[in-house]
Each structure stands twice: as structure tokens, then as C-alpha cells.
């Protein structure tokens, strides 16, 4: 049972705080731009990509994925601060289901991450890409479902941790590997077999792959998408449902 009032007010709170804390927006936008222009721009000269997209263009979907990964996880991990600073009790003692809390938090992650991804998306002309209106709408849709899935995953992570000390553990041992093993920086088909296994288990991979489909619809070479768009969307939706269900259970256990 999901209560709309609870989801609404949980999202409204996160949104309000997001708008109020501009420094957070600056830092979450700066990271992907640094990667895009410094790493992507530099590597473009080293990596000849033939007739297909240049390297900086190739990583553009991966950079959108990075934006979503970091902002969704950051948004969900705020649950740990809410526990630490007591506000979580205000939510847990209210007459709402644990599912509403999880869906509310995941929706917050979705809204905030999509806003940030759209800001990064607006940089597409600077890397020489052409994106039409319908393409852009498709990209925003993928960003939304991907953000929701990653945020739900973040909530599941947060339910296992009680204190802020776990933050750097999560960042270094879960988030960074998720980024590198996602096909963001190099095509999945070029990875060593062992790493490819991990990459295929990573939901972010499918989100970035779907973005590759939408951004390079006609590409067939080495830098093209690795899975079908149908598989990509299916995996992300399935992952969202599984993570929300598990996170709901994990919350219930505490109660």
C-alpha cells in the first residue's frame, strides 16, 4: 500500500532542500563536466575511433549515467543522515507504510537526478552531438527510470548502515566500481571476460546502454550499444521493482 500524501511530502522535502543547498548542485554538476571535458577531451586525441563518434562523444551517455549514479546514491544515502539526526523517527512513527517511505525516497532521487542529468544533457552541442526533440524526450525518460532504479538500490544500501562512517565505504567500494564497470568509459564488448560478468550484473550498464541507443541511433561499429533497447529498459524496470521490494522489506525488519 502506497500513500500518495507521504510520497508527495517526502519528495517535496528533498526538493526544497536541494534548491536551498546550491553548493550541492554545483559540486554534483562539476564532477561529470570535469570527466567529460578533461578526461573525454584529452582521450579523444589519443583514441582514434575511425568513422564513428569521437571518444568524447562516446562517453557522453556514460557521463549522463555518472551524473545519475552519484546524485541518486547521494540522495538515497541521506537516509543514513536522517537516521543519525533523528528525523527518520518522525517518518517511521507516522501512519504510513514502509513502502511509501521507500517509494517516496526513490522518487526524490528520480526527480533530483533527472534535473541534474538534463543540465548535463544541455551540454551536448559542445561535444558536437546532434539531438532532436524526440530523442531528448526518450533520453529524459531513460534518465527517470534509471534514476529511480539506482535510488532504490541506494535505499537498500542505506538500510544496512546506521552511521555516516559507512559513506566513504559505499562510495569507494560500491559506487566507483559501479561506474567503471558500466560501459561508461569503454564498450562492454571490449572488456576482459571476468569484468564483463560484473558489468552485466550492474543495472547502470543497461541504463547507459539505453542512452547509447538513443544518442547514437545509427551507430553499428565497435562503439555501438551492447544490448537491445528492449532488454535495457526491461532490466532497469525489473531492477527498480526488485530494489524497492527488498528495501521495503529491509525497512520493515527495523520496525
Amino acid at each position: 500500500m502506497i500513500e500518495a500524501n507521504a510520497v508527495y511530502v517526502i519528495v517535496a522535502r528533498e526538493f526544497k532542500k536541494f534548491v536551498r543547498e546550491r553548493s550541492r548542485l554545483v559540486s554534483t554538476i562539476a564532477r561529470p563536466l570535469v570527466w567529460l571535458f578533461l578526461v573525454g577531451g584529452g582521450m579523444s586525441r589519443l583514441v582514434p575511433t575511425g568513422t564513428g563518434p569521437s571518444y568524447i562523444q562516446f562517453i557522453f551517455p556514460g557521463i549522463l549515467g555518472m551524473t545519475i549514479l552519484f546524485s541518486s546514491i547521494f540522495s538515497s544515502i541521506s537516509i543514513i543522515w536522517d537516521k543519525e539526526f533523528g528525523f527518520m523517527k518522525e517518518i517511521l512513527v507516522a501512519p504510513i507504510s514502509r513502502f511509501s517511505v521507500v517509494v517516496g525516497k526513490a522518487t526524490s532521487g528520480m526527480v533530483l537526478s533527472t534535473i541534474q542529468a538534463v543540465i548535463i544533457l544541455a551540454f551536448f552541442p559542445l561535444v558536437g552531438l546532434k539531438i532532436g526533440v524526440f530523442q531528448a524526450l526518450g533520453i529524459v525518460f531513460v534518465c527517470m527510470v534509471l534514476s529511480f532504479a539506482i535510488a532504490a538500490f541506494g535505499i537498500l544500501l542505506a538500510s544496512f548502515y546506521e552511521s555516516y562512517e559507512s559513506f566513504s565505504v559505499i562510495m569507494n567500494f560500491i559506487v566507483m566500481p559501479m561506474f567503471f564497470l558500466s560501459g561508461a568509459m569503454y564498450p562492454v564488448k571490449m572488456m576482459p571476460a571476468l569484468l564483463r560478468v560484473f558489468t552485466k550484473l550492474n543495472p547502470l550498464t543497461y541504463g547507459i546502454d539505453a542512452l547509447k541507443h538513443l544518442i547514437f541511433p545509427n551507430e553499428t561499429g565497435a562503439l555501438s550499444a551492447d544490448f537491445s533497447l528492449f532488454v535495457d529498459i526491461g532490466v532497469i524496470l525489473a531492477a527498480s521493482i526488485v530494489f524497492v521490494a527488498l528495501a521495503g522489506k529491509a525497512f520493515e525488519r527495523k520496525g
Partner: protein
Amino acid sequence: MISGKLLHIMIRVENLVKRFGPVTAVDGISFAVAPKTIFGFLGPNGAGKTTTISILCTLLAPTSGEAFINGHDCAAESAAVRRSIGIVFQDSSLDKDLTARENLLFHAYLYRVDASERNRRVEDALKFADLHERADDLVKRFSGGMKRRLEVARGLIHRPKVLFLDEPTLGLDPQSRSNLWEFITRLPKEHDVTIFMTTHYMEEAEVCSRIAIIDKGRIIASGTPGELKKIVGGDVIYLRTEDNKKAAEEIRRLFQIEAAEKEGEIFLSVPRGDSVIPELIREIGERVLSVRMQRPTLNDVFLKLTGKEIREETAASGDDIKEAVRSYRRRHDRG
């Protein structure tokens, strides 16, 4: 069907037990609270007060025993219980990065207060907590007393039947403490609400209609503050005279009561000190230099029942530590 007797009970607890592994935090307690009264749970740190509240407000499941609020079973009907209660936790549960008004609005939405009522209730709560002028300031700029008043007002926004206050004055300065008490004692009348409060400050428990004294998970005494004070047996009178030894003998002989000598003072315990003092001064031959009288406090009750004092917790509240954590996080997490 709710029987006639139950209608006069707002909170009912029967043989409640809660164990955390080897620790028995609540060890078979039973009590009942009448509507629109203030019920005080008095005991030292670790006595099991917060654990009892957590069970009553459905955040913890009891190991055994039963608890009902407004006729609803706390273990089986958590949704109905949650709608009937408001709570001010021992540690603040405000969002300090939101304003006072935003915290109240969040609560109103969470408890599904009608849209037509919402703003009015929030404004009323701000006035009631005397925070109207600071409504749009971030809570992190508030003093401890302001935060507490805001939390109490927030807990009342959805018109609960029962309001829980877990150590509401912990960490406040004496001035804010007495202001908050003045504010709390008005609640049952003004808001038709039953108050369940815990404290380990003895003086504070005196505002309660009834008190249960809890130690090591068990209720060791309960009653009105007056009834409990009778346990210690009346007032204590301290006298200083020119010759204490002689005066003490005289008192024993004339009044047939035990008078002991300690640290240059004679002290004696009597049921009604105020009427005994004039007689004492008249009858004792030795010149009386000073007289003072002490009414029994709940501290004396606790001392008498357990042989130990309730220690006051130092005011280094969790909040300071958490603020430090938060600024640490600001510096390190933005990698």
C-alpha cells in the same frame, strides 16, 4: 465492543516485557492512564522508560505482554495506534535544515490533515509554541527550548489522543525548563490530550496527576505525587540550638519522637511540620538559633525505595556531538 470500564482508560499496559538479548529492559510492567491526565514515568537512566514508549508507539515489538492505546492493540493495530498518538522523542526529530513552518507542514501532510484545515493548524501551532515570528527561520538557528516547543506543537497538529514526551526538558537551561512545563501542563485542557511523559528530574514529576516510579525495568511504586510522598513519612525539621544534645533529649521526652543529631543540627521527621515548629520553639528550653523544614520530594521517595539517588544526566546532549559529525561530513563527503 468496548466495555464501559475501558472508556475511562486511554493507555493500558499489562505485564509488558522487552528483552534485548540478555538485557531485560522492561520487566513485566502494568499500568493504566485515564484520559486527559498527565502520567509521569519516573526513573534513572536505563530504567526502561524509552523502551516502554517505543513499544507504545509501535516502533518496537514487545517480547511478551500487551499494550493498548485508546482501545487499539499496539502490536496488532499499529496504523490505528499511530493515528491516535503524537510523540516528542528523547532526541530531537526535527529537520534542522527546514524552517519551523516547513517542519509543521511536513507533519500535516504526513498525517493527512485536510487541505482546508492544514494552514490554520500550522498557524495555530506556531502561535501556541510562541514561534510565530520565527516561523520562516531554519530550525538549526533555534535554541533548545524553541526546538522543544516546536516539537510539542508539531506532535499536536494531527489532534492525537495521547502525546508522549520522552525526557522533554533534557539539556534545557532551568528557565526554558520551567517555561516548557508551564506550556505542557496547559495541554490536557487546551488540546483534550492525555500526556505520557518520562523524566529523571524529580521536581518535574510533581506536575503529574499520577506517577509510576520505574527502576531496572520494574514499577516499584505508583500513585499521585502526594501518595508517593507519604511513603517517606512526612516533613523533616532541622534545628540548630545553643546545646543540641540537651535539646534533642528534651524533644524526645516532651514529644515522644525520635530526634537525631547530625552535623551540628537536630533533625526529626513529623507528619505535619508546619504545625509542629511553633510548639517546638515554645517548649524547648534551649535557645533555638535556626529552624528549617524540608517537605519530602520524589527524590526522597526514590531514595527510600531503592536506597540510591537518581543521578542527573549531564547536559552534553547528543545534539552537540551530532553537529560535529555533520560538519565533519560537510568537509569530507563532497569528493
